[in-house]
């Protein structure tokens, strides 16, 4: 996180980060609480709407920017991390948070995910994982169980599920956590730490799709705080995450990699100075 240039004059509450636009989500969708967690985290960090930007792709989860009062960017499907990296590199003074879904982030957006982890630009990546494409009405995503039946994959895809946290670690993310939308304050706390940690922070939020995966209502009984604390050893974290059942919550890894710094010259030349190279 970079401190906003304009210092807050009036304290800002969570409510100030909500927008007046009504979500289009189904009643009971897990994503409602994620909005709450975002606003709480922003308020508790003392951010200001004008210095905060939330970037997203396409999907139910990706609709979040419009429900917040902050600068928002609702781009195309799967490319939110690229847009966010451009924004943060061009405007290092902003706090940049990216909101995505398991389809947007791990399927079409998978390459940017890996490379964002490597590049380690200072921003926070939040994926609302419901193991399904909600917006397009119920197709399997990379995190969907191989035997989940759907119209597009009768009898299941038969494809191994994608382990986002393992990939994030393997690719070099600097902060890896899992949260549950049913616990908005726990999620807000994780978001606060994610935003505060320099470099690329990845937060996977289990967020039920009550319409196409009604059985996910049971997730509230499955989640629990991870029995181990935060480690800064990627190998240890990998070992732990590879063997967990996907329901352990908390900050599982926090590293110390310096955030990406694009090559900078002295930066004090005028454009006309560049002409010297052409002169005969």
């Amino acid at each position, binding site marked *: 996180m970079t401190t906003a*240039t*304009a210092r807050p004059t009036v304290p800002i509450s969570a409510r100030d980060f909500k927008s007046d*636009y009504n979500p*289009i989500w189904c009643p009971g969708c897990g994503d409602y609480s994620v909005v709450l967690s975002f606003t709480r985290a922003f308020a508790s960090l003392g951010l*200001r*709407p*004008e*210095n905060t*930007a939330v*970037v997203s792709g396409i999907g139910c989860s990706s609709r979040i*920017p*419009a429900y917040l*009062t*902050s*600068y*928002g*960017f*609702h*781009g*195309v499907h799967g*490319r939110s991390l*690229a*847009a*966010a*990296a*451009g*924004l*943060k*590199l*061009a*405007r290092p*003074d*902003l706090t940049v948070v990216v909101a995505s879904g398991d389809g947007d982030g791990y399927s079409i957006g998978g*390459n*940017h995910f890996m*490379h964002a982890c490597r590049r380690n630009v200072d921003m926070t990546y939040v994926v609302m994982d419901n193991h399904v494409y909600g917006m397009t009405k119920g197709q399997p995503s990379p995190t969907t169980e191989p035997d989940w039946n759907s119209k597009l994959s009768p009898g299941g895809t038969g494809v191994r599920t994608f382990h986002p946290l393992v990939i994030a670690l393997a690719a070099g993310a600097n902060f890896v956590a899992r949260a549950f939308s049913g616990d908005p304050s726990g999620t807000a706390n994780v978001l606060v730490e994610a935003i505060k940690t320099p470099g690329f922070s990845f937060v996977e939020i289990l967020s039920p799709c009550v319409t196409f995966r009604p059985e996910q209502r049971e997730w509230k009984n499955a989640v629990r705080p991870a029995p181990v604390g935060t480690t800064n050893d990627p190998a240890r974290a990998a070992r732990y995450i590879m063997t967990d059942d996907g329901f352990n919550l908390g900050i599982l890894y926090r590293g110390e990699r310096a955030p990406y710094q*694009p*090559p*900078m*010259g*002295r*930066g*004090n*030349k*005028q*454009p006309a*100075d*560049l*002409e010297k*190279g*052409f*002169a*005969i």
Partner: protein
Amino acid sequence: MTDVKKGAGAAARTSVSVAVTGSGGAGVMTAGNMLLAAAAKAGWYGLMVRSSGPQIRGGEAAALCRFATHPLDCLDDRFDVLVAVDWENLHRFADEIPLDSASLLVGDPAQGNPPEVYVKSAARYAQLGIKGIAKAISGSWPNMVVLGVAAGLIGLPKDAVRAVVEKTLKKSRDGLAPSLAAVEAGYEAASRIGGDAKLAPPGPRSEPRWLISGNQAAGYGAVRGGVRFVAGYPITPATEVLEWLAPALADVGGVLVQAEDELASINMIIGASFGGVPSLTATSGPGLSLMIEALGLAVAAEVPIVVVDVMRGGPSTGIPAKSEQSDVSIAVNGLHGDAPRIVVAPNSVSDCLVTTQWAVHLAETLQSPAIVLSDQFFGQTRAVVDRPPDATYAGRRLTAAPNADAYKRYAVTESGISPMAIPGNPGTAYTADGLEHTDRGIPSSGARDHTIQLAKRERKLLGHEYGDFWADIEGEGDIAVVTFGSCTGPVREARSRAAADGVQTRLVSMRLLAPAQADRLAKALAGVKRVLVVEQNHSGQFLKYLRSEFQLPGEVKSFRRPGPLPIRADELHHQLVDWSRA
């Protein structure tokens, strides 16, 4: 046809073309570059096109040079001099380096015989033991002999050549003396060979001159236009735009990132521009194809960006290192939905600078994506140019004031342009959206909002006053040539040759392809009876586009051919003269 300066004697020409060829490792590109630098130093204009076989390294190569007393925008139809270090695979260049009976072919008989096609050309063959001469000077290389020969044949002052060699080799103390000796030997050989390929003395140097490639020029135009963020993915022949920008941006406080792919690079620049920083990427056909979806996002969300497309042979991977003007259709038409965008095309190497700068200005002013259609010829040709004027086009985006009352990002204005709130601005937080939206930016699938926003986005482009820079219009007459980009050079030469034959023509070289300037074109073509549309592609994409947007007057003819061979002034000249007499 080679211009001869009236009264300057048969041997003093205003334009001379020289090719230097050789197989891998012969150093012909170095020789060509030195020749160009020396000519520039001595006060001539010139340009050099690199041509090589498909090999990554080590295949046959040719430096195609042309020098003149006036600025040059294209190669000539033929070559006055070809100096071949060896004959290997030289026949592959036969189409690119046409010789005729007035040409001079210098080559080494120890390497065998010249290729059949050149024997048939009836060019004078001057035998020269190039390798032998180099061998005799210990530590020297054949390409330095060739440099001396070529320089001598066209009458470059030895001082200029020496100075360039000294500058280039200043770090290699040992190499310098033998190189200078080889150049000297080359000059001697040239004086023995003789010929009439001497350049007329250069005119006075009125303005500062640059030696620059179109890709560098585009990069500098971007910086001058205010671009401070660039993301890109390497691709031939656009990579040099990015490579020039990398250190340049760092120097002026900007940022360049190498992205994982073109999808990332264009979305990165959209993100950066959303953040208020003028942004650009450079690519070629395959990359442009991958950017199509996000270009539509920039249209819908009204985020200014510039994409420099350095065109190469298509379709698909096509012919990566050769020039073609075949991305017109995709540039003007290639987005899904109704997606108005700006498309501009520079029409000379140095115009790559000003037109790219203009593109940044238009993108920023109109909050729209702008595509710059350059091509491999411009991009990779190095040319001696007059320093381009200081254009006043600077990106100026209409931004929202702090705490603007009931801020509406997509407010419906008369011009179609709405103030854009830049993150950091208090009280105007909004969400930019690629979904159709209300004036506030709230997603809407309503027919009214859709129609209003479609019309607004169209209006802001159509209503803008683009000024005279939309096209270069020259001449009078009832035959007009309408063209764009790198065909402009040969068309200009053809027109002046036709004028010498008493055939007056008009030129309309369109710099602004989209939005179409129907009224302006109609005015430019008023009274015209015949229109020749010139472009370098197979299917006549430019003509089809013109037909879709304009009612072209009178009889219309298409003159086109795909790459990689350039369209030559000579064939256009004949076309114009024949047509005028038809």
